[in-house]
């Protein structure tokens, strides 16, 4: 069973006296998992630990049952697109991917085939014969991504993979992550672009100052934040009437009517009671309700509630 998960058991990492991560316990299932947190929160440390580039000061890490201290096994399963925007000098895009595949021990034909496939996946085939040093930032990002996926890893770790990409490339890359995640593989992504994290993530891990603040599916994480009233957006034909009926309840702490006269934003400290009440009110009053949707169960809101904007984040 543990062979399907990435697990961290009481993992800490210190850089001298500086804390990188502290007592992290995680079980990451397959799918797309986003690491969210301000600069210096420990996202890259977590990624470097699970790829074996650094070692924990204490604790045990297993990636699909393999310890990162065994790169011979681990690196066949893991691809890592790091944030280091550096390349061996003088290599073309093709040579860059092909040469490191050769270090995996594959023969020439296999390396060529995999290199071509990886280049096609990131739309870099045409530029593959140009020296990497002459690439734009977005192209360098894509060629690093191609290098990380070329050996078809079970676990793909991506540190800010959308940086420098144009909107078209972003959308293609996000689609690639989704496909990868839906095929039962692990995709671990760190990103500070929270609306994009929302789009791609099956689960999130929120980090702050080296601690895991929350983890899980974003709706689940949101519902755990009890001290922040839940926001619910209702679109109906008579929002004023609905607001006056609902506002009599104790758990409704705020109601705002939208400028178009059809939207009502409510904040409630008890979502379960609210939904029960709402059903009753709608039935009693005969309101025509177009939609009811939570307005703050996204990564951005949860991030603001748990970590806050005063963290020096790059959001």
């Amino acid at each position, binding site marked *: 069973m543990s062979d399907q998960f990435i697990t961290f058991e009481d993992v800490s990492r210190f850089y001298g006296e500086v804390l990188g991560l502290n007592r992290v316990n995680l079980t990451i299932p397959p799918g797309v998992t986003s690491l969210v947190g301000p600069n210096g929160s420990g996202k890259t440390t977590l990624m470097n630990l699970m*790829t074996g*580039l650094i070692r924990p000061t204490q604790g045990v890490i297993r990636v699909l049952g393999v310890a990162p201290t065994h790169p011979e096994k681990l*690196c066949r399963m893991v691809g890592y697109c790091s944030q280091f925007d550096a390349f*061996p000098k*003088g290599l073309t895009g093709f040579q860059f991917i092909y040469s490191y595949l050769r*270090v*995996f*021990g594959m023969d020439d034909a296999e390396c060529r085939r995999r290199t071509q496939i990886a280049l096609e996946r990131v739309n870099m085939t045409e530029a593959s014969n140009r020296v990497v040093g002459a690439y734009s930032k977005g192209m360098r990002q894509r060629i690093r991504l191609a*290098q990380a996926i070329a050996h078809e890893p079970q676990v793909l770790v991506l540190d800010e993979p959308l940086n420098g990409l144009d909107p078209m490339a972003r959308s293609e890359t996000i689609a690639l992550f989704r496909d990868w995640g839906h095929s039962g593989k692990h995709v671990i992504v760190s990103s500070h672009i929270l609306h994009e994290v929302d789009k791609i993530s099956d689960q999130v891990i929120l980090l702050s100052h080296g601690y895991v603040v929350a983890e899980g599916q974003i709706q689940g994480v949101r519902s755990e934040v009890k001290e922040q009233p839940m926001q619910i957006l209702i679109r109906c034909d008579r929002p004023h009437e609905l607001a006056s009926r609902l506002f009599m309840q104790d758990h409704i702490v705020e109601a705002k009517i939208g400028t178009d006269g059809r939207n009502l934003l409510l904040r409630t400290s008890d979502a379960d009671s609210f939904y029960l009440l709402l059903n009753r009110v709608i039935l009693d009053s005969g309101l025509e309700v177009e939609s009811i949707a939570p307005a703050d169960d996204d990564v951005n809101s949860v991030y603001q509630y748990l970590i806050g904007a005063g963290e020096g984040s790059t959001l």
Partner: protein
Amino acid sequence: MNQAWMRQIAGVLRLEFKKTFFSKRGWWIYLLALGPVAIAAIHWLFEMRPHPGRHSIGEDSMVFAVLFHFYYLRLGIFFGCVGIFSNLFRAEMLEKTLHYYYLTPLRRELLVVGKYIAGLGLATILFVASTALTFLLLGRHFGAAYTDYILHGPGLNQLGSYMLVAALACIGYGSVFLMCGLFFRNPIIPAMVVMVWEELNPFLPAVLKKISVIFYLKSLCPVEIPIPPPFNVMVIDAEPSPMWVAIPGLLAVAVILLIYSAISARQTEINYGSE
């Protein structure tokens, strides 16, 4: 399985040769190797013209011996190996590209071996070829007499010995400086320490003499060079090591240093931020 690790080492060699050969950063190493060849070629061209007071083949042989001792062993090969081997890991740390290797399923020990063989390939090609060319060009102006000296006299043996010593120097110094590149942020400092130790070798007690590379290399050289006055009074004589001790001894030291480097490489973390 065996083929897999051999293919992995071949993969490292391909990459290293691509990065190392003809790299602009290493221009001065080519200069170190080609300098004496150019001087020998000029000497040949100059001496081709008939002129009085022409020296003998024996004198040219002694000139080469001095050049080999004081230039090749103490300067050219020494600093060439500093440039080549200490940068095998250090340059990748500075350029932030070592993680690409560390993210392949390659045993770190094999990475050390692969990089060492690549460095050794470059160093031996450069310095063994340079030694041979310089030796052959230095007496070329003697024409048929020099050909006879090489083919029927002691020339071929001497040439073989010098080439062997140059190759062994690359092996010995290569292992020392590969290790320095793994352990020190600035490998020039340990390189200078090693250089001072090697330069002091003639003046050290016999026991300490043997803890060096130069002592064994000198034992294998075909022509002995006396230390000139006034330094000769400070020289402490020691029996040169016989070939059957000098060659395996040097190789053993190189293997020990490589094993130590391989163990260290396994513990090395990618932490470019602190570089």
